[in-house]
């Protein structure tokens, strides 16, 4: 193992230079992420509420925060809601994204370019700008969506989309999927262009139907990409914060629409229960790290080559 990708490795000399080069980045990461992580673990074992925020020394209470949380049905409701929201969004994004990528192969070139530029534009939108636009589209009084639904004969005049939790999450899903599909569609389409034509043609000559070719040749060839993209979607959708937070401000009960991220925020920054918030945050971190393991493995495969 003496090669570094992209060229021959410099001789493995013993030199402190690489370590020196890593110092600035390491310091930044340790100060802004490493130290808070340690502090958060400590915080999650402490009784740290508003009184402590105003100077009283925090008491060490061991696992009490965790015990309180795990016996709190609300945490389980929020966790379940988060997982459900995550899975529905990731699945919908994958379905639409992969579907579009497959269809893009069969579109006439100008249409394909049209679709790609549209997706690129949606992808480029900053999340807050996208949020305000979607709020405006779903606006109760003057929103285009209510107008169009009323025009086709449905009773949506003055309909409030954010009032009912289910409808609230429907809107959130539409927005999240709209923002996430471009990444999936582009990545999968790029992978599809690499699929061996010969193999597909051979299967066609052997009499395989379109569906069979897709199932047995095309999809298996892009399996690694599909897995990584799906995993990234799950990880990203697990931590949807901005969209939920902004929609909550626009209307809708926070209690019935909190996901883990907004719950931590309201628990900690909102009501000063830092110890409890830290415990929920640890829970969320562990959940993410577990999910991240396969992603890291896939990425390292290339590194080892």
């Amino acid at each position: 193992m003496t090669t570094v990708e992209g060229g021959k490795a410099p001789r493995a000399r013993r030199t402190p230079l690489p370590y020196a080069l890593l110092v600035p980045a390491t310091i930044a990461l340790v100060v802004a992420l490493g130290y808070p992580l340690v502090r958060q673990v400590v915080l999650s074992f402490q009784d740290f509420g508003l009184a402590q925020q105003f100077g009283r020394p925090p008491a060490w209470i061991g696992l009490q925060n965790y015990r309180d949380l795990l016996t709190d049905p609300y945490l389980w409701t929020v966790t379940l809601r988060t997982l459900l929201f995550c899975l529905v969004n990731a699945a919908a994004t994958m379905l639409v994204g992969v579907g579009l990528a497959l269809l893009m192969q069969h579109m006439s070139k100008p249409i394909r370019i049209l679709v790609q530029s549209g997706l690129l534009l949606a992808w480029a939108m900053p999340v807050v700008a996208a949020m305000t636009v979607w709020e405006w589209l779903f606006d109760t009084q003057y929103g285009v969506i209510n107008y169009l639904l009323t025009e086709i004969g449905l009773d949506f005049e003055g309909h409030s989309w954010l009032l009912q939790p289910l409808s609230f999450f429907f809107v959130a899903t539409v927005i999240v999927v709209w923002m996430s599909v471009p990444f999936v569609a582009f990545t999968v389409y790029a992978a599809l262009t690499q699929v061996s034509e010969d193999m597909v043609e051979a299967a066609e000559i052997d009499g395989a139907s379109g569906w069979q070719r897709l199932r047995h040749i095309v999809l298996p060839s892009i399996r690694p990409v599909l897995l990584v993209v799906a995993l990234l979607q799950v990880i990203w959708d697990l931590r949807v914060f901005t969209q939920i937070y902004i929609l909550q401000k626009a209307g809708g009960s926070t209690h019935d629409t909190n996901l883990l991220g907004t719950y931590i925020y309201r628990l900690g920054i909102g009501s000063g229960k830092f110890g409890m918030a830290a415990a929920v945050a640890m829970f969320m971190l562990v959940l993410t790290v577990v999910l991240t393991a396969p992603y890291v493995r896939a990425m390292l495969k290339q590194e080892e080559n």
Partner: protein
Amino acid sequence: MSRPTRRPVRITANVIGVIAFLVAVFPVYWMVNSSFLDRNEIRNPVPTWVPFGGSLHNYRTVFETDQFVNALKISVMVTGLTVVFALGFAFVAAVAVSRFRFRGRMSFIVTLLIIQMIPVEGLFISQYKMLEAMDLLNTVVGLTLVYVAGVLPFTIWTLRGFVAGVPYELEEAAMIDGCSRTQAFFKITFPLLAPGLVATGVFGFIQAWNEFTLALVVMTREDQRTLPLWLTTFADVNRGTDWGGIMAGSTLIAIPVVVFFLLVQGRMVSGLTSGAVKG
């Protein structure tokens, strides 16, 4: 795969393509369209589909609010500092990781990959406590600190690919011609890295410019708001009365991002999945 497609399949694909295009583009179009409309058109029960007869009135309103100009200043400072520091730190780290073999190299890379996936929501409570203790809440420095750490992993990872992409043989050739190793690196490899530095710098810019969650946690004072925070509070106050102004604000925030994003999009996508693509 560019095999001929049967006609009905092509037609179906094209129809769905056009629908997908409309769904993707309409919100963006609607933002720009509404930003030109005056209050009467906005509050008309029948939507105004094209901004004929529109004006720049909404943009004037936005620029005349002190909060917008102030938020713009804060955003420019935080974004600028984040890009400069993240790029500098990431560049030297990327050189170390891709041009040297040393103990701990692999652990460093694995750590980066894991950190890259950590959700901000999982740490912002203690980052808040830390900045509070350091007296850095509501400061550009404090927000920049957490932003730099946030974009570093991806920036190092991507730059690493760019550095590794320049064959080491080029440097060796220069060294045979009498350059020192450092000279060889700066004369040969560094100029070839310009596109990579631009691309990753733009990535940092987009991240810092768009970021909402940490800004919400760190910048609690009104006079320290970044643009995304300004936009959401502006929307809260004016919802139902001034959607035109809100859309003008959104458009202004989106323009630099869209422009930059379109410039570097291709280079960035591969960074996240290159491991899988090459298998």
